[in-house]
């Protein structure tokens, strides 16, 4: 056996061991130092306009209603703590929800671009998930694209589909689009030597499907149940956030 063979076996073995040993799957954050500097900078540039728009929107909300400041602080904390929740996953192991879909339905996509980025930053600084140089890439997939997709589904399906279906699709598609964008980011940074970007995208997509597709389905189901519980217990709060505007009871 050539030394390179042996090395390869060790690497693959270790990777598989980690994959099957960790019973709980987190959302897919690109870790610190994983992206080359050019790509890390590129995603920061792409996400910057959304941060500017989001902060301007938050400043306007605070100027109108000063209590929004505290509400947003607690909202970001709620989204962060939600990712500490363990939910059963369809594959039998468990996973952690991202809260992207629910947060978007409650607070809207522009506010979520800032709140989601704060959550990502805190995840990097408090639980060592994700990173600082990869914050731009992670924020683009999870705080910009995910919420936008959720918002379009939620608004587009209102009055056209049952409310549970709109909630399920918004939450599940937010996770799925985040997963697709992250796979794209990885494939762009590390294209396949033979098949280029497309082959690389297929590779990363297939590998992360193991954890991310069950997560999307579980989170969709969970978000529907949360939304039902919120309608039963927190109708006044939902109305004051403007969530149920245009929703038939």
């Amino acid at each position, binding site marked *: 056996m050539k030394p390179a063979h042996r090395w390869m076996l060790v690497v693959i073995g270790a990777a598989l061991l980690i994959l099957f040993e960790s019973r709980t799957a987190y959302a897919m954050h690109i870790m610190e130092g994983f992206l080359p500097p050019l790509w890390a900078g590129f995603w920061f540039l792409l996400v910057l306009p959304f941060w500017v728009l989001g902060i301007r929107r938050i400043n306007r909300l605070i100027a109108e209603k000063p209590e929004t400041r*505290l509400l947003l602080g607690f909202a*970001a904390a709620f989204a962060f703590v939600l990712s500490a929740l363990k939910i059963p996953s369809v594959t039998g192991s468990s996973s952690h929800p991202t809260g992207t879909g629910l947060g978007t339905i409650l607070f809207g996509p522009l506010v979520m671009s800032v709140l989601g980025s704060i959550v990502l930053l805190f995840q990097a600084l408090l639980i060592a998930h994700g990173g600082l140089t990869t914050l731009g890439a992670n924020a683009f997939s999870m705080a910009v694209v995910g919420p936008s997709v959720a918002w379009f589904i939620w608004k587009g399906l209102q009055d056209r589909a049952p409310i549970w279906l709109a909630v399920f699709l918004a939450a599940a598609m937010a996770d799925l689009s985040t997963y697709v964008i992250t796979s794209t980011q990885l494939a762009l940074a590390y294209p396949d030597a033979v098949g280029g970007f497309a082959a690389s995208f297929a590779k990363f997509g297939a590998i992360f499907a193991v954890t991310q597709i069950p997560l999307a389905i579980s989170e969709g189901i969970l978000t529907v149940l949360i939304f039902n519980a919120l309608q039963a217990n927190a109708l006044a709060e939902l109305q004051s956030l403007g969530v149920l505007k245009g929703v038939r009871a």
Partner: protein
Amino acid sequence: MRVIDRYAFGNALRQIDPAQKGALALLAIILCLALDRPAVGALALIWMLALTTWWARIPLRVSGRVLLTEGLFLGLSIIGIALSIGGKTPETTVVAWQIGALWISMTPESLALVTLVLTRSLGCAAALNFLILTTPLVDLIDLMRRIRLPEGLIDIMALTYRAIFVLLDCLERMTTAQDARLGYATARAAMRSAALLASQLFLTAYRRSQRAQIALESRGFDGTLRVLPLTYQRSPRVWQASIALTASLLLAGIVR
């Protein structure tokens, strides 16, 4: 997560200016990314683990475990980089398997890339972990205020940090109560319990934010949250460590 927070408040470098610690960590990350050599990443990993262990006096067991929290992501994406899929195999391969019309192969170049990415990520992650294990988030938020991030954003982050622990306590109490009543006995029950818990948590968050607003207003809240600035020590040893780190990483990056 409480582990990181606990060590952040109780390590030997707690009193040192976060700007200095942040600069040291950032320097290591930038050098790792800019020099882009396996030796640099490996050296940064050793440097940062050593600083965390002997200087900040955080057990190696703890920093090692924190480093491996991203193991799943790293393990999975490394496989993606190592293997190539295509209709044909490249000229030189280490191994190649054929599945139907597709070839799954591994080249010496892809293995070199794996080594590079693995060492670089671990080196950068160790630098970031050095920062978060030695500096509490309150200090980092204070640092962000000093580098003039938008004031509204800083306020929200400071509130978020406080609210996270309030809500986490709440979450843990509710989980225990549900668990004691067999709320997580089956997958179906677990899903229902998790949903109930999340909705109650949302209510708690909403109502607490309103109560905090009332409490602040009754004390003359005018829209800005003012806190006393923290005082830190500036240590010349941080600069010495930074210079030694830069010199050794540059050397590892240049010498073949």
